[in-house]
Structure formats: C-alpha cells, structure tokens
C-alpha cells in the first residue's frame, strides 16, 4: 500500500530533516510514530504530501505502486493520501461545507466519477458530522476559522471521513483534545478505518493508543526510524522515555 524507502528531505537552508526513512504500511494496519520533539515526525507527513517548504533529497514514496513524489499535490490527495497537520490552517471566507464538497468532487473527477448531487452530499455530511458529534455551526463557518484546537482536529477528521482516503497520516490529532473529544475523535477514526485502509498516527502519548490499537509502533529520532515494535513499545516509551534507545 504505502511504501517509503530511504526518504531524505531538507529545508530551504539545506538542513536535512529526514535522513533515510523506511516504512512499509499494509492495508488494515495502524502505525504509530513516536519520538522526541524535532525528530522529523511532522516533516514526514508534509514531505509525503509535497509541501513546498521541503526539498526531497532522495528516496521514494509509493502508494499502490504509484510514485507520489512525481505527482502534483492534489493528485497525491486524490490518489488516496490524506494528511492532518498538527496546526490545521485557518481559511476565513472559504465555507467549510463548500470546501468539503469541492474537495470531494475533485477526488470524484480524478476517479472518473460524476459530481455528487446536493442531496447525497448533504446526507453524507450529516452522517459523518453525527459520527463526530459535530453541531450545525460547523457548516456555516470558514475552514477551521476561529475554531479551538480541539474543534479544528475534529474538523480534520470530518474531512478524512468524507474524502475516505486509503492512507491517513494524522499528526498529533490528540493534541488539544479534552477527554470526551479524544474519545469522539478516536471513535471516528476507528469507524472510518477498514481492512482496505491504513492509518499512520503521530503521537506523544499512549492515551490515543488506548482507543486506537496500533499494529506497529515506531520511534523516529534525528530523521530516522530507529526502533520498531508492537503496541507494547508505546507503553515502554511512556514509562521510560527515549533515552534508553541506542541509535544504530
């Protein structure tokens, strides 16, 4: 499904942030990426999506055999990749629902499908908003505009639910969420997840993994995955931190 091989990327001043990432994600899997601040976790999602602030120095990223790094950003998304950033961008004046509809229809056009009709879209929207316990105010607002941190994260998961991506890369989706919101968002992700899809979660804490059981846990440090293991690894990291891990 998603295959990342020896991915290296740097920022404009030449500083290399990713120094050779290798990650294989198969359908039905949940991968948790943990690591200290500044290790490159957020950079990884942005580089995969093609953020212009990063330069790919080498390696490959394939989604179902297609080289994502050679595709336009919107085509990467329409091929089935979704990223949720740590600090979702606010876009005042762009209505949340109109944006969602435009995004969904862009994907449908890419897949050779006709535009969704208003009735079906409304129904889909209502169903997903109900799943995430979102009230009607979200419809009227600009994209993430004036929303609290938690509201933004919930709005991101709404986008994920509607766009139905193959692989979702969720960067610190649990930050800024209170206990109830964490449960709702995690339930939403579990509901969206299926044996054909995969999720990569970036998190600092075990608490999200109490709700979303990871298949694998990886430790990213200094731009490389230095350790991988099962769900028990997250518990050990929570107890002991990162200093015990020896880098190869």
């Amino acid at each position: 499904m998603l295959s990342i091989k020896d991915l290296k990327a740097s920022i404009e001043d030449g500083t290399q942030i990713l120094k050779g990432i290798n990650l294989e994600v198969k359908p039905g899997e949940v991968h948790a990426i943990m690591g200290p601040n500044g290790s490159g976790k957020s950079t990884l999602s942005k580089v995969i999506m093609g953020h212009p602030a990063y330069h790919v120095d080498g390696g490959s990223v394939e989604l179902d055999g297609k080289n994502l790094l050679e595709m336009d950003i919107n085509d990467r998304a329409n091929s089935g990749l979704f990223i949720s950033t740590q600090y979702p961008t606010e876009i005042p004046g762009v209505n949340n629902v109109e944006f969602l509809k435009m995004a969904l229809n862009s994907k449908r056009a890419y897949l050779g499908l006709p535009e969704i009709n208003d009735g079906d879209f409304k129904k889909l929207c209502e169903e997903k908003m109900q799943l995430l316990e979102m009230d009607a105010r979200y419809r009227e607002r600009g994209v993430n505009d004036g929303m609290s941190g938690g509201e933004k994260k919930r709005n991101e998961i709404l986008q994920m639910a509607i766009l139905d991506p193959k692989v979702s890369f969720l960067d610190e989706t649990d930050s800024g969420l209170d206990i109830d919101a964490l449960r709702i968002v995690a339930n939403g992700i579990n509901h969206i997840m299926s044996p054909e899809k995969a999720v990569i979660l970036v998190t600092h804490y075990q608490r999200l993994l109490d709700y979303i059981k990871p298949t694998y846990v990886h430790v990213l440090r200094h731009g490389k995955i230095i350790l991988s293991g099962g769900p028990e690894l997250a518990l050990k990291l929570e107890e002991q931190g990162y200093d015990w891990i020896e880098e190869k």
Partner: protein
Amino acid sequence: MDAVTRIKQLGMPRRNNELWTFFPVAKIPAIEYGSGDAATNTATDAATCDEDFSAETDFAALLPIAQNARPMVQNIADGTEEMAMLKCNNDFGHTVLNIGKSARASLEILDNKVQHPICAERFDINVDEGADVEIFFANPANDLPLTFRHFRITQAANSTVRFSAIERGNGITRVSIDALLNAPGAQFEARTLNMLGGTSESHHRLHIYHNAPETTSVQLSRNLLDGSSRASYDGSVIVGNGCTKAFSSQLVNTILLSEDSSVSVKPVLKIYHDDVECTHGNTVGELDAEQMFYLVSRGISEKNARKMLMNAFAFDTFAPLPEGPAKKRLLQELR
C-alpha cells in the same frame, strides 16, 4: 465662483497636485468646457449652478458641472423607504439626492455605457437626521476608457451612510469621496473591492471630515491585482477641534497576483482633538502559501484553490454589511 471659472483656475490635474499623485494624468484628454450635455435651465439647474465652487480643489468634482451636466434631483421624504437605481446616459452626470429624516434608502449606481474618451459623474448626497442610506455599485467589467465618479456626502445627526463598490473594469477609474460628518452620531462606512487585470487602473481618493463629536468612519479597501493593473488609495481623515469620541479606522489589503501589478496607499490623519480614536493599516502580499497547500492537499486543483482564496478575500469585504439589497447585489456579483 462658478465651476467653469474654478476649473480653469485649477488647470488640468498634474502629478504634483497631491489629489492626483498616483493618477496617470497624461491619460486625461483635452477638454473644452461647456462642450458636454446641453444644459436645461430648470429651476433645479439654476439652484445647483449658483453654488460657489471657489473652495473646491478636485478637478473631478467640478468637471460634470463645468460640462453643464443636467442635475437629476431625487428627494426621499422623511420616514420613507426607497430603493432606486441611478444611471447617467450622457458623458457627464450630476445627481442630487436629498434623503429625509429617518428615511431608509438603497441606491444602486449603474454604469454609464457611453463609449467616449472620458465620462464623469458627480453625486451630491444630503442625508438628514437619523436616515440610513446605502450607496453601491457592482459594475460588471466594462470598457469605458476613463471614468470619474465624485461623491459629496453631507450627513446630519445619527445618520448612517454605507458606500460599497466593486470595480473590475478594463479602463481607468477614479472614485473620489468627500464625506462630511456634521453632527453627533453620524456614521460613514466605505467598503471597496478592486478586481483588476490587464492594464486597468482604479484610484480612490477619500476625504472624511469629522466635524462633530461622536462621529464614526470606517474604511476598508481591498485589491486583487493581476496583469499590470494598478490601484491607489489616498485616504484622509480630518478630525476637527472639539470632536470628542470621534472614531475612525482605515484598512487597505492588497493581494498582488502578478509581478507587474502594483498598489500605492497614502493614509493621512489630521487630528485636531485629543480624545479620539483613529487607526490605519495597510497590507500587501500574495495568496497565502499555507492556505494554498491546505486546499490542494485536499485534492483541489491549484487553479480552483486560487479561485477559492480570491473569492474568500473578496467576500470578506462585504460580509459585515447588514442584509439588504447592497449586500445581496455585491455578493451576487462575486459568485
């Protein structure tokens, strides 16, 4: 002093005249005064032409009068509500509007379609106590080469005037506004949006006079400039002595969509009293790169993402307007 004498005294606009600093004055054709519409000497004409123009300094304010524009007078009675469309069918137009006490008026100005080298319109708008007036134009793209629109707005106590406009023509336009807030509680608001491309130009010159305490003025001007288009905003706020609690804000936001487009902004605050609040700001930039990334990372094409961001910027200009014909028309024009 009549308009012809005064305009001859002033001479043609020059760049060293601060009212015309940003304007391409060389594009103004030679004008023979009195060559415009044939004047009809009605009682109203006589009354208007008797006005003393010796203090008028703006060429564009004088030109329609000097060209014998026939005044169209419209009176809106006290306490009534009226919607009107104003259209000038000649090169030079003069409209006088008298809005009665506590009246409510919504006035849309339609384009003059005369394809002559220059057209100029003047609007004298007198707003009585407690009246609420919206004046707007949302003209679709036109090819008028040179257009002047001058507004002289005089406001009495507790009156409100909202001026809103979208300009997206292919020629050169200049909008000048003198707003006189002459009594407490008078409020004036100007919201303008230029969406220009090619070689088109839009120049705005505002003088807002706070002549009484507790008067309010708000200016928001936004520009989306592509091609080698140009815009300028010359906004002056003059707060007189004794005008306690006057409030004024001015904000100009510009997005430059091309290398060759440009904007010039000149805020002027002349404040002759201490207990007032006056602000001004100006931003110039490109479309927000993070917002672009966000939209395309959801599968939206770059072209559509740009369009969405430009529309959002444009919509925001008029979103705070109260529901009514102006808001409906302006937002409709942007859809």
